[in-house]
């Protein structure tokens, strides 16, 4: 059976097409496009993705309005059933606002929009997203965000670290995130939110500084989990 992945588009999403392209490039199957106003998701999904962008113009707080949209009720219900969910950038912000992941993304400590390729250290190698990496491995993935400064109280941060739920850390932190956290997992490891954009790093670039294929591995990991399931 083909890999069934959905890409949710909110008004103001702008990486939905990149996500769709990456999913199809890796799985060979077109992703299913879902509009934020839909009440239901397609059935039998292997993966739900929330793409980057500026949903609802970042009104109120980044991701806050999208978290209240009709489709998010279905996404929360699916996540509770164990369907893997990947939120990238604005998608990560939406996942925290929907309380599928702990913490929040604040304005970057340096106040500036940060757009460059960064080094990440892999901190978890057991989730459906990260099992193909080795612990401590360094990968290069682009970031592009204004509100990527991960915040949670010390108790929550200790819990995330203690339970191996810090998926990725920045090598050199671009945004002031607590404990250099770039991506976190849910308690069951099946929801991942990350600020860097793996969907923008799925093929080797002619100019190395412009991209790379390290993000592709994350999609391959998900596909391998699906094949093993």
């Amino acid at each position, binding site marked *: 059976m083909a890999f069934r992945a959905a890409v949710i588009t909110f008004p103001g999403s702008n990486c939905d097409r990149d996500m769709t392209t990456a999913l199809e490039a890796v799985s060979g199957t077109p992703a299913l496009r879902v509009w934020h106003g839909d009440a239901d998701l397609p059935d039998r999904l292997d993966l739900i993705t929330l793409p980057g962008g500026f949903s609802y113009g970042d009104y*109120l*707080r980044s991701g806050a309005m999208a978290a209240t949209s009709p489709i998010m009720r279905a996404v929360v219900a699916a996540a509770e059933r164990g369907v893997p969910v990947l939120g990238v950038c604005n998608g990560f912000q939406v996942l925290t606002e929907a309380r599928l992941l702990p913490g*929040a993304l604040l304005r970057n400590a*340096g*106040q500036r929009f940060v757009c460059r390729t960064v080094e990440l250290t892999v901190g978890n190698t057991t989730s459906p997203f990260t099992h193909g990496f080795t612990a401590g491995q360094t990968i290069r993935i682009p970031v592009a965000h204004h509100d990527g400064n991960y915040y949670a109280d010390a108790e929550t941060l200790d819990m995330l670290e203690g339970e191996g739920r810090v998926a990725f850390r920045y090598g050199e932190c671009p945004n002031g995130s607590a404990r250099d956290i770039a991506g976190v997992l849910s308690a069951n490891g099946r929801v991942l939110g990350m600020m860097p954009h793996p969907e923008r790093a799925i093929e080797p670039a002619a100019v190395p500084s412009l991209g790379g294929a390290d993000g592709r591995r994350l999609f391959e990991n998900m596909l391998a989990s699906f094949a093993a399931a």
Partner: protein
Amino acid sequence: MQVRVLVRLKPGVLDPQGRAVHHALEGLGFEGVGDVRVGRMIELDLADGTDEASIRQMCEKLLANTVIENFQIESIG
């Protein structure tokens, strides 16, 4: 009835906007500015008799993110 909701970052949560505003005030020559915190003010026009519990729910579910923000509800008429 009208209600004003003030949303502020919790004490201890870094406020880069406040810091930038502080810096700008100093740049304009204002002295003695200690700390600056930027928040958000939301005015709601509500049906008369809307109870406090409902307004608190509006704050907790949408108007504030209680992971990082506190809110304060004031009646303004």
